[in-house]
């Protein structure tokens, strides 16, 4: 369950207390993944800190999405393994993995005419069995996912009728209804305007504060540094740096990873690092 701290949610006796998510260590060990004969990740090692809000940054085609999709077992692994709580995820059944790791892909297309609650309820599939198809527990999970994403008031509306920002929140709700301790988001803000981007990132922060481990791919370095507790910087299928935003976002590192010369300031709002590209000659290399 994703209990929101509202009177109604805390009055629900079946809702577990916040931060009830078991800490799960998700890691890639010597992970090599490619598409056909084009290798994308070459023996990558990374550990996602349990309970963190980790953001992966890096230039286009550096393997960010590939890493995220591999962590969720969407891609076949050529070498190495993705390990969840010390166990290769390939040794678990796909439903078991689906009860622990959820992912929102870059693009999702809702079936024509489907209502919001119906779409979100499909996130319950890994928890259902053939003879027990819909339970009160499923209904509670759907409702709290809708509340967490502020989409409950749209529950009976068709997904097609919603705005882009609302639709993205509905898809997040579907992933939340899956009730996984680890949630991965692949460029969740890409098609949203700035207000909806902030709204979605604030939602991520709330989900993180409830104890889930969140991993997102983001393009905007300043947003990444502002919202993440951990950053992973990638280039050419390798992890170049990882750690707290203040350690990772330095002028040298940004130039090394993105090929952009910049100055780094502390954000006057949050104190998190903020980059400003130089006025001229900022781009040093085609990444």
């Amino acid at each position, binding site marked *: 369950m994703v209990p929101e701290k509202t009177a109604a949610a805390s009055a629900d006796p079946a809702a577990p207390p916040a931060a009830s998510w078991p800490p799960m260590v998700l890691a890639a060990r010597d992970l090599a993944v490619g598409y056909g004969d084009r290798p994308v990740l070459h023996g990558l090692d990374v550990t996602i800190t349990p309970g963190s809000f980790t953001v992966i940054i890096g230039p286009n085609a550096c393997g960010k999405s590939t890493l995220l999709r591999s962590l969720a077992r969407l891609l076949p692994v050529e070498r190495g393994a993705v390990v969840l709580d010390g166990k290769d995820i390939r040794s678990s059944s796909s439903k078991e993995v689906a009860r622990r790791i959820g992912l929102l892909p870059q693009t999702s297309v809702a079936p024509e005419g489907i209502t919001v609650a119906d779409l979100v309820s499909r996130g319950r599939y890994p928890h259902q069995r053939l003879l027990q198809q819909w339970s009160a527990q499923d209904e509670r999970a759907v409702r709290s996912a809708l509340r967490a994403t502020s989409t*409950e008031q749209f529950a009976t509306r068709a997904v097609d009728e919603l705005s882009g920002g609302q639709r993205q929140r509905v898809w997040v709700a579907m992933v939340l209804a899956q009730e996984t301790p680890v949630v991965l988001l692949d460029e969740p803000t890409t098609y949203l305007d700035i207000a909806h981007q902030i709204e979605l990132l604030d939602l991520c922060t709330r989900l993180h504060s409830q104890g889930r481990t969140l991993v997102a791919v983001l393009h905007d370095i300043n947003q990444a540094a502002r919202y993440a507790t951990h950053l992973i910087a990638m280039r050419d299928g390798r992890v170049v740096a990882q750690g707290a935003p203040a350690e990772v976002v330095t002028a040298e590192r940004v130039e090394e990873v993105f090929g952009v010369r910049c100055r780094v300031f502390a954000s006057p709002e949050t104190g998190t690092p903020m980059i400003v590209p130089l006025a001229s000659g900022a781009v040093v290399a085609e990444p």
Partner: protein
Amino acid sequence: MSDLPLWTSRVRVIALPGSATVRLDRRAALVCAVLAALLLGLGALALTLGETAITVGQVVSALAGGGDDGVRRIVVQWRLPRVVMAVLGGAALGVSGAVFQSMTRNPLGSPDIIGFSTGAYTGALVASLVLGRSALGTTLGALVGGLGAAVLVYLLAFRGGLQGFRLVVVGIAVSAVLSAVNSYLLVRARLEEAVTAATWGAGSLNGVRWPDVAPVALSLLVLAPACAVLVRRLTVLELGDDHARLLGLGVERSRAGLLVVGVGLIAVVTAVLGPIAFVALAAPQVARRLVAGTGPGLAPAAVVGALLLLVSDVLAQRVVAPGQLPVGVVTGCLGGAYLVWLLGRARRRS
């Protein structure tokens, strides 16, 4: 804060013993009930129609095992199997179409468009024209031809996974090639053989008797429960392959299972009746518009398919009475008109 409703007013949540509940879409249930009543009425009417006019009262007493021997033979031995076959066959075609269209996420992803029916016709033509004709040979030939075409389309469309759109395009291409083969086989055949073969190729319920119904009914006994189990996977597949995998669904395995069931449903009908145009294509789309809901909608597609084939068969028998048209001619006309209407409506909208 009171709970906002999760479901629209047309959905009724029914609590079962324990914590389980079932969501019933009232509009879908109503549509199915009304259509089933129509089906029953039309079925009864169909039993009264024909060269020998028989009243409803006579039909009822014949079905109860009474009445005149001759009337009973006409009703129970001749007309009833035809009506039952139209209902079972139409339902099977409707479900098969719904499975394929939902799986390919494409209204044209229907088994009769993507090569299955054309392949069955090729098989039947080869069996009857090249290998020498017999009814059983034609049936087996159709089965082999249809399944062969399905396997061929599957293999050609498979690229590390199966994309709905690719399946449709490859299916249409294979269908075109097989069509050419069929024309060639017909052109080189002797006239009366060609006429017999072409009649089969139009799809017909003429002369259907209980021994023809039995294999279809038995197959449905196996395939219907399989559909009921697989439909859940279909609703997950509708979200796209990524989401389906992320929800823990074995995508390729589910799709293979659905293909087997979908092909099985149309195969058994086509083998017995010949390729019947448009029912598999149109029934799920008509059902979808009547129900105005989401999901694969197998049950509404089944009822609409049954009604479509039964109506078409009554028309096929009456339009040129005392002559009889193959039912496929009628379904083809109805389906074609429907498709034009559908495209016209889509254009007006855009």
